[in-house]
Structure formats: C-alpha cells, structure tokens
C-alpha cells in the first residue's frame, strides 16, 4: 500500500520540478529537455519489455520512428489534420507491433534481440528506399505542429510544446506505473523469472509476452509522434539501430525493471549526448564506456543507488531485504 503511494508521490514531485523548467531555463534548455522527456518516455516503456518481461530488444526504434513517419505521411501525402495524422501514426505502429508480436515472442534472449534488430533494419531499409513517398535518405521535413485551439497554449512555441510533452509524459508514465504494479505486471516478472512455472500455474505466457511487447511499442509510438512534431522532421535516423541501442542501454544503465531508472537514464543520456557531441565526435565511445561502467560498477543501474543507500541506512536497524528492482521488493 505504502509503495503504491510512493510511486505516485515520485511522479507528482517529478512533475512539479519539471513544470518549473521553462521559468528557470531559456529556450535552449527547454527544447533540450523536451527531447530528453521524449527519450525518457520511450525508455520507460521499453522497460516493461526488457526489465519486466526479460526480452531485450534491439529494434525498438522501429516503433518510435514508424509512428513519426505515419503522422508525417498522413499530413503531407493525404492532407490529414495533424491530430488525426498523429493518431494514425500511433495506431499504425501499434498495429504493426501486434501483428509482429506472435512471431517475435516465440524467440528468447539473443534470438529475440536479433530478430528485433532485423525487424528494425527492414523498417529502416523501407524508409531509406521509399523514394518520394518516405523521402528516402532525406526523410520528411516540414511537419507542422498541431494546434490545441487555445490562445494561451501555443504548441508552436518552445514552452508550449514542452508543457504538452510533459503532460503526455506524465500520463504515459502513470499508466506504465499502474500496469507495472498490477497483477499483469507481476505476471511479467514471473515470466522473466520462470516461464515454465507460469505455464503450469495456468498463465498464457505467449499472450502476456505479446501484450508486454505491444505496450512497449505503444509508448514508443506515442513519443515517436511527439518527436516528429517537436523536430518538424522525421528521417531514417529515427529508425536507426543505433537509436534502438541507445534505448536499450538507457534501460540497462537506468536499472531494468525499475521504470523510473530507465526514465532518468533515457533523458540523461540525451542531455549527455548533446553536450558531448558538441565537444567531440566520439559520442559512441563515451556511450560504450558508460555502459561498461554501469555493468561493472553498478549492475542494478541508477535505480540500485536508492536501494544501496537505503540498505546502508538500515544496516544498523535490521537485515537488508532490499532488491535491485523496485517492484520485486513489495
């Protein structure tokens, strides 16, 4: 009971802090944080698949990129209203996940990772060879942002779009936290730990893995559209396997299975990346080093720092029962 309230308090506190950003920082930082929130949300969603269900994917950018492409093509080729195009893009991406899930969830571990890499590369290949329809290598620039029809809330301004992204992030995070805390979320942990036992207790393991896959894809799709509107552009880079790797590493560095860890790492990596690519071209090396550091020094990721601190504090008052994942300690 207390743990549920704790999640909601963290969410509320985080939201309040993030609300202040445009007042304290200029447009540069507000814009940077908008993109950081977008990547944070994707990583959090991916954690449902990687951390909870134990299925590491190296093709998650596909769902992120395709929804952006879907929205852009809807607006530019079919003259759809931007809201309708956004919805179309998201539904297109989720539909693809639902269709591909039955095949994907037959794979385990490395096989799953590899088939997702292949899936992502196929999407990337189609986008780069799609000619005028997808814009090929150049992608599709000039995507207009939608309007809320409110004079005081203009999505075309940096602050306005930041707040819109923040609202979406809070809503998606809240839904993901509730799912993670539910009986369904617990069953995903069970599948990660012991699939056979779950089957012999009556759980439909394949269906639940497919559901986790689609939920992660859904979160990726929502933020993919936001990213397309924010940048006014989609290109093959949004489908690139390197972006998939960045999402997966966000989950690992943040602490798989903790939700908020991947959120912090997903956003943090983008900020660090922006800073470092401004100084040097060796960002992939830095990312690799960060990953090695996380795996060697902090195997539970950023999230385990809290557990470590709590255990240290409790050491005098009793045995430590904390675990690296927030959910498993309930």
């Amino acid at each position, binding site marked *: 009971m207390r743990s549920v309230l704790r999640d909601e308090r963290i969410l509320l506190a985080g939201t309040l802090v993030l609300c202040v950003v445009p007042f304290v920082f200029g447009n540069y930082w507000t814009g940077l944080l908008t993109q950081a929130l977008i990547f944070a949300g994707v990583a959090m969603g991916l954690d449902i698949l990687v951390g909870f269900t134990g299925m590491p994917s190296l093709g998650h950018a596909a769902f992120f990129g395709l929804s952006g492409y879907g929205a852009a093509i809807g607006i530019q080729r079919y003259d759809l209203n931007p809201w309708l195009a956004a919805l179309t893009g998201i539904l297109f991406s989720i539909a693809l996940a639902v269709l591909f899930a039955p095949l994907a969830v037959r794979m385990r571990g490395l096989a799953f990772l590899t088939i997702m890499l292949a899936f992502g590369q196929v999407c990337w290949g189609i986008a780069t060879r799609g000619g005028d329809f997808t814009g090929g290598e150049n992608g599709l620039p000039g995507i207009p942002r939608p309007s809320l029809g409110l004079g005081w809330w203009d999505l075309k301004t940096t602050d306005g779009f930041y707040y819109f992204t923040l609202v979406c992030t809070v809503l998606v995070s809240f839904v993901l936290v509730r*799912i993670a805390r539910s009986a369904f979320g*617990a069953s995903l942990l069970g599948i990660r730990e012991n699939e056979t*036992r779950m*089957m012999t207790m009556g759980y439909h393991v394949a269906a639940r893995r497919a559901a986790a896959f689609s939920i992660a894809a859904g979160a990726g799709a929502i933020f993919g559209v936001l990213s397309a509107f924010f940048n006014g552009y989609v290109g093959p880079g949004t489908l690139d396997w390197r972006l998939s790797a960045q999402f997966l590493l966000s989950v690992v560095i943040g602490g798989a299975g903790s939700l908020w860890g991947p959120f912090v790492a997903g956003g943090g990596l983008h900020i660090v990346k922006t800073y470092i690519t401004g100084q040097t071209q060796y960002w992939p090396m830095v990312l690799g080093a960060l990953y090695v550091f996380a795996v060697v020094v902090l195997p539970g990721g950023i999230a385990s720092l809290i557990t470590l601190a709590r255990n240290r504090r409790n050491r005098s008052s009793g045995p430590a029962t904390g675990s690296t994942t927030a959910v498993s300690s*309930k």
Partner: protein
Amino acid sequence: MSATPVALTVQKLTVRFGGIVALSDVDLTVAKGSRYGILGPNGSGKTTLFNSISGLNTPASGTIALHGTDVTNRPARARAKMGLARTFQITSLFPSLTVRGNVAMATRMADGVAGSWWKPADLQISANDDAGAMLEQLRIGHLANRTVRSLGYGEQRQLEIAMALATRPSVLLLDEPTAGLSNAETVALTELVRTFPKELTVLIIEHDLGVIFELTDQLTVLQNGVMIASGPSAQIREDPIVKEVYLGR
C-alpha cells in the same frame, strides 16, 4: 473401486526424445482422492511422465485424460485451469520475488484476478489474504517478506509445495518433494501431505521408500520407461520383481 470417480487416466503413453524411448506404453488410472506413488530408479521416466501429464512435453502416442476429458492436445495452462498443479524436482520458483509474491502469483490465478492490469496487485485483498493464509497453513508465514533467493533450501522446498497448493488444485503432482531434505524436514513434509484434503488427488514421485509406503495407497513402478508393476502399495511392497529391481534385495 468402480464407483470411485477417476481423476486422471493415462493410456498407452509413449514419449520419445530423438531415438531414445523415455516412456513406453504406460497406463495409469488414478482414482479421485487417492494417494498414488510413482517409484523407479533414476532415468526410469518418472519426471518425463509428470511432464507429459502437465503438458510440458509432446507424447509420441497415447492419451491423457483429466476428470474424464481428453487433454492430450491441450497446453499446460489449460490443464492447470482444469485443476492440475505440480511441483518440480529441481526447485522452480521466482528467485528475485518475495515469498508472498511467489504464492500470490498462484492465488491471483485461482481468484481470477491474474489478468487485472490497472488495480495495484498489492491491493487485491482476496488474493493477498489467500496467499497469507497459504503461508500460515504451511507454517512459513514468518518468511512472507523474504526474497526467495535468500531462503534456505528446505524453506524453498516448502514454498514449492505452497505454490502448487495455492492454485487450489484437484490433482496435485509432487515430484520428489523430499529431495535433499534432512530427516526432520522429511518427517515434517510427510505430515504436511497427510493434512491435505481427502478429495485432493495426489501423485508422488519419491525415492524415500519410507515416505512412499507411508503415504500412498497405490503404486506404479517404472524401469527404463516401462511399467514393471502396478497395484496397491502393500502388495507392491511384497512383489518379488520390484524387490529385485528397485529395492535391491
């Protein structure tokens, strides 16, 4: 005997792994509420038989019926929903979850709330009460908040049984429940099986002959995947072939 309803029927069951015949024409008729023992040396096909009954392998031929319904082609989860539960010879738990979390995974399924995706699982009153009651019943309530990984082996074996019972089964398969337990723990476990409700059908694979003759009323002996004897436990105990093959006398 003929008046007693049958809980489980296995007919002409044959299981092959590549060229190896793991089970050959095995027949079992297990009456409702009986305590049925499966005896046999290592590699005789006992666990393979349990895997077939619970739906974890695909038999080459033969049929398996649960409460009179043919389940040969039904997946493990469907059989579980029909009241079948099992434990594993090699402890099979959720190591990073708590003891309560492990048992709740089973009670949520029994309570029909395992698919709920919005309500926090730790607020699902009925499933949590059931999990707590099950832990108390097995006298491991004090371990409820411990991580499974941190438990002793004997405690894990108890939890293994708690999880199978928590699905509220009608047919329970116990695969070597006393494997690796101390004498005192074995006695406690035997006592526990005695307290099971009368209407629960129990099949036990066991190497401890004391345990098996004490608990079971019917017995089937396997050797190299073939049934060499089957009948009332008291009778099997005196069977000369069984004595020679298994008891080594």
